[in-house]
């Protein structure tokens, strides 16, 4: 899932400073699961905008904001959108961009988009994948170093980790430590001996 987080409401208000007659478009995929673009959050956004003196002409939470056929298709389901002078999209940057392509009014994001991650047992896990277009995660015990290492190193760790923690963030485990432990657990440490060329191809 795409990991996004809500911008501070003050920032959203600042973005919408010159706008009124706003239509809110949520996203029932990732943003809803992360509680930053589902129905509850959209209704809450409507209330807060109205409390701030804005007119909200309507809202919708489509299956996915990143999969919108056309403006007509949007209007068909939500005639109120025709009255809108601006659209606030409560989704990731892909959702905002997709809606922007079809909308005839300015489109604003309510969220910041952080990474491609996941959610497991309630925990949100960011940066699981770097979307490099050449998936090799199997060789790293299912832990992608391109996604999780700040230096995107695929031949092993840098010299900067200390006590198993990342050079960049002491609260974060060095991903190479995790990869090692994982491959050790499944008895595949031999996978680590591969040398990866500059195109991400194993020897």
């Amino acid at each position, binding site marked *: 899932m795409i990991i996004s987080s809500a911008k501070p409401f003050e920032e959203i208000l600042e973005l919408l400073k010159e706008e009124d007659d706003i239509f809110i478009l949520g996203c029932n995929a990732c943003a809803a699961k992360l509680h930053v673009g589902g129905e509850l959050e959209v209704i809450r956004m409507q209330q807060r905008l109205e409390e701030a003196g804005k007119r909200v002409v309507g809202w919708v939470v489509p299956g996915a904001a990143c999969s919108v056929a056309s403006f007509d298709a949007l209007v068909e389901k939500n005639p109120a959108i025709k009255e809108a002078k601006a659209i606030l999209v409560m989704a990731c940057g892909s959702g905002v961009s997709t809606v922007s392509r079809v909308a005839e009014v300015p489109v604003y994001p309510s969220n910041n988009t952080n990474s491609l991650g996941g959610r497991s047992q309630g925990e949100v896990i960011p940066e699981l994948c770097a979307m490099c277009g050449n998936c090799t995660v199997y060789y790293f015990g299912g832990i992608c170093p391109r996604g999780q290492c*700040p*230096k*995107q*190193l*695929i*031949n*092993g*760790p*840098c*010299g*900067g*980790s*200390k006590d198993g923690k990342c*050079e*960049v963030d002491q609260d974060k485990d060095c991903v*190479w*430590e995790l*990869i*090692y432990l994982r491959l050790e657990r499944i008895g595949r440490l031999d996978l*680590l*001996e591969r*040398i*990866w*060329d*500059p195109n991400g191809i194993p020897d």
Partner: protein
Amino acid sequence: MPRTFKEKLLSDDFLVTAEITPPKGTDLNEALEDAEILRGLADAFNVTDNQRAVMRMSPLAVSKALLDKGHEVIMQLTCRDRNRLALQSDVLAAYSLGVRNISVMSGDHTTKGDHPRARPVFDIDSVQLLGAIRKMKEGFDLSGNEIGGMPDLTVGAVSNTDLSKPMQLLKLRKKIKMGAEFIQTQAVYDTGQFQTFMEHIVDMDIPVIAGVIPLKSAKMARFMNGNIPGINVPPEMIELMENAEDPAWEGLSICAQTIRELKGLCRGVHVMPIGSHSRTPELLEMAGIRKDN
């Protein structure tokens, strides 16, 4: 004729390399004076590349200035600031200007330096850069285009000596496979630990030049233990520093003793002083190192 660093690497000499930091600005005098202090004492000068991700003059320019003064240099090259085009481009530039030794490393992340918002590159890593340079030595760039070659380029890499990190050793092995001809290490204080490291990599058969940093105070030792990965100053050394009347001299004395112990363990030492090399000749003399080249 003085022998080259490469020839010395292949000999049985105990080597001394020393770190030169490029200026934060355009004035080369300080760097050149620092090197001058060690003329005849150091076999080559490592010129650092935006060390600790702090922006400084390009090591290429400083290397050229040192070469012009008759010094031998090991130009450092990090993967942090350049993509594969720029890295190869700088290797060509360095070679054409007379640089014959290059040491490659990942580089500290930009967030650790003085331009924390800079976008880090890391297009290729140190293992891949070693492979790229090996290919360039044979006359081809990374895409297989002919470039004429640079047969007498000697390439080194860096390594941690902490055996508790198996991945570090694995990466060292990869570096050697991809053409590293010598290794320089992070500062060594615990020579016992270092000896175990050397025993562990004996099959790798590569010259290892052990890093040393003279301590200046107990506080500095504690700071390094807490903040610099791969450095382990033993508690008794910190205590010696704590009780010293002249901590800077005590630090030199400890460092000289370390160098004496390292003489039997590896192929040389790499002196990384904090600040200038003003006391490095004294350090080397205390350690019983004299060069007559």
